[in-house]
C-alpha cells in the first residue's frame, strides 16, 4: 500500500516545504465560499486568482506536486492580501498566514519593481531617519518646480506612478517629547505607534490622534526607539527583516510600561497583533510577543472600549465610511469606527455599496499591479460617488493615499479623512504636539 504519509513527505529538494507545512492548509475544505468575496476573482473569474485556488496551489507545492515557480509566484503576487476571504471563511482559515508563508518561501525579487521595493523594505522602512530624509528630498522635488519639469520628460507610466503620491506636507510628525500627560483626569497610560508613512505623509493625523487620546484622559508615550511595524516586509516575504523589526518594537513598547499600544493605521495594527504568531518559535521573544500583541489596539477599537470622556462637538458633513481591509477583515473591527462617527453630532453617515471591498491600494500593490488596482479603484470611486458624501473616512494611510488619488483621477471631488482627523476637528482639537 502506498502510504499517504510517505506521499506527502516525498518532497522535491529545495522546495522548502517544511516551512509550508502549515496546519492552516488542511483546515481549508475547498468549499468555495470565499470565491465571490475575493476582489481579484471577481474581476478575472479565474480560480487560480481566488483564495481557494491559491491555497490549493500552496498545498500542491507543500506536497511537491508543483514547483514554486514563476507562474505560481504570479498567482500569489496578484493577491491583494486584503483577507476578505477570512471574513467569508466558515472554517476560520488564516489565509493571510498561508500567503505570507508562501511569499516567504518565494523570497527573491521577480517583478521589475520588486528590487526597488526590497531596497525600500530593507534599507528605508526600518530606519525612520532615512525615511524622513527621503521624504524631505521628495518634498524638495515637489516644491522646487523639478516635478513640473519632470512631468514633461518622464514616460507616462512613471508619471502615473508618481501621481499616486500626495504633496509631502511641510511638517513631519516629530513629537516634542516622549511622554504627553493626559488633558483632564488621567484614565490610563498608553503608547502610540508613529508609523513610517503616517509620520511622514500624514503627520496631521498623528497629531490629531495624540490630541484625541489626551483629551480622553490618556497619558501618551511615544517611544523614541520604535520602528516601522514591518507589515510591508511581511506581506512581501521579508520575514527575517520583519522579525528583527518586530523585536525592536516589542522592546521599545514594553519598556514604556503602558496598558495599551494604540495604532491609527489599520495595516500596522493588523501586523502588530500578529507579532505573537510571527515570533512564536523565538525562545526569547515568544512570550514577550504574546504580551505585546495583546496590548495592541486600533485607535477606534480602543476609544470605543474606553468610552469618550469628552463629548464631540457638532460637525455638519455628509460622510461615508470605507472599511480598511486590515481593520474589517484582519482585525474584525467594523462597528467601533462607525459608532464613533455616530457619536459626532451633525454627521450624516451614508453607507456605500461593498464598503469592505478593497480599494486596490494594498500596500505597494498599486505600484506593482496597476491594472488590477485601477480596476478596483474605479469601482470603489463609483460606489463612493453614489453616496453623495462630502468626505470619505478611511482610517488607514494606504487607503487614504489611494482614495485621494482616485478622487483626483476618477472623481468625485471628495475629501479623504482619517477618523481621528474628524474626531480631532470635532473637538476643535489643538493640543500641543
Amino acid at each position: 500500500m502506498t502510504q499517504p504519509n510517505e506521499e506527502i513527505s516525498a518532497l522535491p529538494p529545495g522546495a522548502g516545504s517544511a516551512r509550508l507545512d502549515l496546519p492552516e492548509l488542511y483546515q481549508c475544505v475547498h468549499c468555495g465560499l470565499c470565491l465571490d468575496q475575493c476582489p481579484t476573482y471577481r474581476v478575472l473569474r479565474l480560480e487560480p486568482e481566488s483564495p481557494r485556488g491559491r491555497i490549493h496551489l500552496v498545498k500542491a507545492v507543500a506536497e511537491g506536486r508543483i514547483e514554486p515557480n514563476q507562474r505560481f509566484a504570479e498567482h500569489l503576487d496578484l493577491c491583494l492580501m486584503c483577507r476578505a476571504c477570512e471574513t467569508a471563511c466558515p472554517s476560520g482559515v488564516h489565509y493571510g498566514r498561508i500567503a505570507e508563508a508562501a511569499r516567504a518561501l518565494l523570497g527573491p525579487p521577480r517583478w521589475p519593481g520588486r528590487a526597488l521595493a526590497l531596497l525600500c523594505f530593507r534599507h528605508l522602512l526600518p530606519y525612520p531617519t532615512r525615511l524622513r530624509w527621503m521624504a524631505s528630498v521628495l518634498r524638495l522635488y515637489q516644491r522646487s518646480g523639478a516635478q513640473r519639469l519632470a512631468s514633461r520628460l518622464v514616460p507616462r507610466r512613471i508619471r502615473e506612478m508618481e501621481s499616486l503620491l500626495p504633496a509631502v506636507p511641510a511638517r513631519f510628525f516629530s513629537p516634542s517629547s516622549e511622554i504627553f500627560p493626559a488633558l483632564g483626569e488621567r484614565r490610563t497610560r498608553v503608547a502610540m505607534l508613529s508609523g513610517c508613512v503616517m509620520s511622514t505623509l500624514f503627520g496631521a493625523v498623528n497629531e490629531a490622534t495624540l490630541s484625541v487620546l489626551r483629551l480622553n484622559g490618556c497619558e501618551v508615550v511615544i517611544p523614541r526607539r520604535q520602528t516601522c511595524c514591518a507589515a510591508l516586509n511581511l506581506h512581501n516575504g521579508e520575514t527575517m527583516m520583519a522579525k528583527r523589526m518586530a523585536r525592536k518594537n516589542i522592546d521599545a513598547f514594553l519598556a514604556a510600561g503602558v496598558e495599551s499600544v494604540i495604532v491609527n493605521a489599520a495595516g500596522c495594527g493588523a501586523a502588530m497583533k500578529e507579532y505573537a504568531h510571527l515570533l512564536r518559535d523565538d525562545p526569547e521573544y515568544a512570550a514577550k510577543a504574546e504580551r505585546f500583541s495583546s496590548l495592541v489596539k486600533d485607535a477606534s477599537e480602543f476609544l470605543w472600549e474606553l468610552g469618550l470622556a469628552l463629548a464631540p462637538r457638532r460637525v455638519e458633513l455628509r460622510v461615508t465610511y470605507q472599511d480598511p481591509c486590515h481593520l474589517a477583515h484582519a482585525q474584525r473591527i467594523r462597528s467601533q469606527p462607525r459608532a464613533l462617527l455616530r457619536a459626532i453630532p451633525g454627521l450624516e453617515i451614508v453607507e456605500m455599496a461593498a464598503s469592505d471591498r478593497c480599494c486596490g491600494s494594498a500596500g505597494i500593490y498599486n505600484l506593482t499591479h496597476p491594472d488590477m488596482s485601477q480596476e478596483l479603484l474605479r469601482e470603489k470611486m463609483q460606489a463612493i460617488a453614489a453616496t453623495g458624501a462630502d468626505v470619505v473616512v478611511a482610517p488607514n494611510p494606504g487607503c487614504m493615499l489611494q482614495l485621494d488619488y482616485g478622487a483626483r483621477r476618477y472623481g468625485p471631488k471628495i475629501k479623504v479623512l482619517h477618523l481621528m482627523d474628524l474626531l480631532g476637528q470635532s473637538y476643535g482639537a489643538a493640543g500641543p504636539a
Partner: protein
Amino acid sequence: MAPVRQPDAGASSAFVQLTETRRFAYAQGRFKFFASGLFSFSARFVKPMSRQDLIDELKEIVGDRYVLSAKEDVIVYEQDASILQAMPEIVALPADVQQVSAVVKAARRSGVPIVPRGSGTGLAGGAVPAEGGIVLSLARLDRILKIDLANRVAVVEPGVINLDITKAVAAQGFFYAPDPSSQAACSIGGNVANNSGGPHTLAYGVTTNHVLGVEVVLSDGEIVWLGAMVPDAPGYDLCGAFVGSEGTLGIVTKVAVRLMAQREAVSTLLAVFDDMDGATRTVVDITAAGIIPAALELMDQLSIEAVERGAPVGYPRDAAAVLLVEIEGVTEHTQRAMNLASALCARNGAREVKKAKDDHERELLWKGRKGAFGALGTITPNYYVQDGVVPRSQLPRIMRTVADIGKRYGLRIANVFHAGDGNLHPNILFDLRHPGELERVIEAGAAILRACVDAGGSITGEHGIGLEKKAYIGLLFNDQDLEAMARLRQSFDPERRLNPAKIFPSPAGCGELRVGPARMPAGLWI
C-alpha cells in the same frame, strides 16, 4: 504497492479496478490516454489535432488569458468541494454563448471531453474532469440579462451567483427561492446541473420548480432553448429533463428563473435539545400537525462545535442537537404556527426555545447553518458528506442507525441537514493522512446509503450523483431504468464527451483520479 481490492457487491463496490494503462476510445478512437506513472496525469491527443493546436484554437476563441494549460493553473480546477480530484489538461473560460459553442465545436473536432464548471462548490465531484480533457468554466458568463417583475421572471447567465439574483430583486420585494447553503458562492448554472435544493426546499421546491427555460449548447455546438418563458409549454418537458442532468446533456448558457414575492412575515426559532431523538421526533410532529415550515433544519453537537469554532454565532456548544424552524406567511398564520411549533418542541423535551428577535438575530442563526459545511474544517482535515433521503417519519430511526454506523466503524459523524425533507447530510470526518481510514469511511458511507434506501428513501437529495455516488445508483435503479436514462443521454450526446464518467455506474473512467490531499491507494478509485 497497495494490495488491490477487488470490487464486490458490498461496500467496496465503490472501488473499481483501474489498469496501469488504459486505452479509451472516444469518437472513433482518436483519443488515447496513458496513465504515465501513477500520480502524474497525462493524455495525448492524436489526430487530427495536436494538443498545442487545440490550445491555440481555444485561445483564438476566448482570448489568451482565458485558456489555461500550465500545470500551475489547471491544477486548481482538479477539485470541487468534494474530496475527489482529477487534473484537466485545459481550462477554457468563454465570455458568451457564441464562444461556448465554438469551444464545444473545437473540442468535438479533436475528440476531447468537456466538463462544465460553475463555481466548483459541488459536493459529489460533478465538476471533476474524471477523464481529463477541457474544463469549461462558465464563471465569466455572469450577467443578469433581464428582470421582468410583471411576469416574475429573471433571465440570467449561468455564472451568476445564486444569492445575487435575490439581491437584485430584494428591494422590490422578490426573491429566488432555491437557497443552497453555498448560495453566496454557487452559480445558477451549477444549480441547474444538480437540481439543487436548500433549507427552503421544504416550502418552495427545488431548482426544477423554479426554472422556466434554459438556453443550452448541445454537444455539436448548436444553441437551442428548452422550455419557455411562460409556464405550461406544450410538448415534452425537455427543460425538466435537462435540470439535474449534471452537465451530461449540454451546457447551459442562459436560465429563465421564476421570481417569488417575499412573504409578509418571517419568524425563526432555535430549539435546543439534549438528545437527538427529541429533535427528530419534533420534526415528525411538526409536519404531522399540518404546519409547513419554510425550513426545518437540524444540526448535531459536532456541527455546532464546528460552527462555534470557525465563525461563532452563539449556538449552545453543550447541546446534543439544535433545530431551526422558520415559518413564513401572513402575520396571523405565522404567529399561530410558531406557537404550535414551540409547544411541540417543548413537548419533545427541548430545554430551550429561542425566537429570533429581529432580522439580525435571524441572519445570525442562518449564518451558522449555512457555514456549517465549510466550518467542518475546524474539527477535521477531511469530510465525506452523504446526501441520503428518508421518509420524514423514519428520521428518529435513521439517525440512530447513523450513530450506530459511526460507532461500528470508529468514525465521527457530524450531522447538519434538511430535516423537514428527510434529507440527511451525515458528514463522516476523517484524515486522509491516516492510512486505511478512507476505506472505512467509504464503507460507512455505503452503509448509511443502504440504510436510507432500505428505509424507503434515496441516495441523494440534492447534491447529485456525480462521480462520488455513481457506484450506488444501482441501489435505487435497476438495469432497465439505467438503460432508459442512458438512451436519453445518448440522444443528446452520442459521443459521450459531455462530462463523461458521471452518474452512470460504468467502469469507464481513466486518467488519474485521486482523493486529495493524499493519493488513493494505487489501482483503486471511487
